């Protein structure tokens, strides 16, 4: 079989992924979203567009929600990356997951992981957001199913559950 040869420019990446440190060899040109999905096997993070236009790939890097298709994996060296898979702990859903489930914040569910991570970023810096703040924080995450009505309700419910 054809051997394409070694991939140039790989380096060792050490990141804290969902609370656990790990090391992987990654190419310089690997996007964070591809690292998460292909290398780490965390397919909860979605790809919905050809770059930076939908927010489905939103993850937390050092507590801040960013689109993981717009950053290189190599630039996350030494940083903490959190994905949807890291939220539930100890056999309990995270408050946002609980709220999105109960309030129907997810219909088809494809935008949901990115939406929840964007909302989690908001709640970490503003535990009691107004509706306007919620809408502003989610303005980089497209949803085609809900009209955002129940998404906003879900985030409000999660914030209230935390209080």
């Amino acid at each position: 079989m054809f051997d394409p040869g070694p991939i140039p420019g790989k380096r060792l990446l050490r990141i804290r992924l969902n609370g656990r440190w790990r090391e992987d060899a990654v190419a310089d040109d690997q996007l964070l979203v591809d690292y998460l999905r292909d290398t780490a096997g965390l397919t909860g993070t979605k790809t919905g567009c050809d770059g930076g236009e939908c927010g489905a790939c939103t993850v937390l890097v050092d507590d801040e929600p960013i689109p993981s298709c717009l950053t290189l994996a190599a630039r996350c060296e030494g940083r903490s990356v959190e994905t949807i898979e890291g939220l539930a702990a100890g056999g309990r859903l995270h408050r946002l997951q609980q709220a999105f489930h109960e309030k129907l914040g997810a219909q088809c569910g494809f935008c949901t992981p990115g939406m929840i991570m964007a909302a989690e970023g908001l709640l970490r810096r503003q535990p009691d957001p107004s509706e306007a703040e919620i809408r502003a924080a989610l303005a980089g995450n497209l949803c085609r199913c809900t009209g955002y009505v129940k998404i906003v309700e879900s985030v409000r419910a999660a914030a209230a559950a935390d209080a």
Partner: protein
Amino acid sequence: MTAPLPLPRLRLIRPTTVEAAVAARVECPQHEVLAGGTDLLVNLRRGLLAPPALIDITGIAELDEVRTTADRTRIGALVRLDRLAEDPAIASRHAALREAAVAVAAPGHRRLATVGGNLCLQTRCIYVNQSAWWRAAHGACLKSGGEVCHVAPEGARCHAAFSGDVAPALIALDAEIEIAGPAGRRRVACADLYHEEGRAHLRLDSGEIVTAIEVPTSIAHSGYLKERIRRSFDFPLAGVAIACRTEGAELSALRIAVTGTNSRPLLIEGTDALLGRRIDESVLAAAEKLVARQVRPMRTTLFPANHRRSVAAALARRLLGALGAPDAAAGRGHAGGTA
């Protein structure tokens, strides 16, 4: 790995000093500078450029500082847009800069994107910002290696439109740009960073990078209004920044800059003729006319050029009126929310 449109194979060079970054650019001028990456990575995936390496400058600590003195604010090129939007000193000193920063793209982009990157944003055109398949199928244009500009086939230049939000604010605020190059550092007025040529709109010499912005505090009132279809994601169909100073009720300084309509952020000429006058209906009408006459929107977006022209003019009138109103801040805030 099966995902479509991967990045092309490339290396990362990660300098930790400005000098090393400049040296890397000098060594290979085809290398691209990577800051936030929100524009560059998307363009790379669409094959708009194919550098052998990216010079990732985000490890240069000195470029990530905001320093304030009584008469100036110095902003490192790597300061992120979300920080500009949230920094109370910037909000109180340079409202236009804050309003422009918060108008860029979507929240996640603003957490990655830098002020220097937004200044150096590639010009945009509906015939250019497409996949490699698209451009090849349609036929390349001046900017993508072809012989003709599809927007204005009879002309000799590329009309791709500058679409950054921050540049017009900085031009209106009379900011200076600090540039580092092989010959050391130099400064230019922000407006002079740009050419009216969509293929090469940045007046940077080989090896140069933008390192900082210095904004004077001398112009008290400023604001930025952006016309777009959606309140998030969209580049400006037109964006207007105005900075002005009044003595008594009369204008003593007035600078208007427009984005989205030309291949560079455009400083509107002739505003000095309005100095010494009160901001009344005739001044607003004059400002509107100045903008309408000087902007040159072309068919670089799906939205008609005449619409972008008339809206740019209308925004200039509205913004100047709001800045001239007694409760300037409140009026501007509202306008910023709806435009």
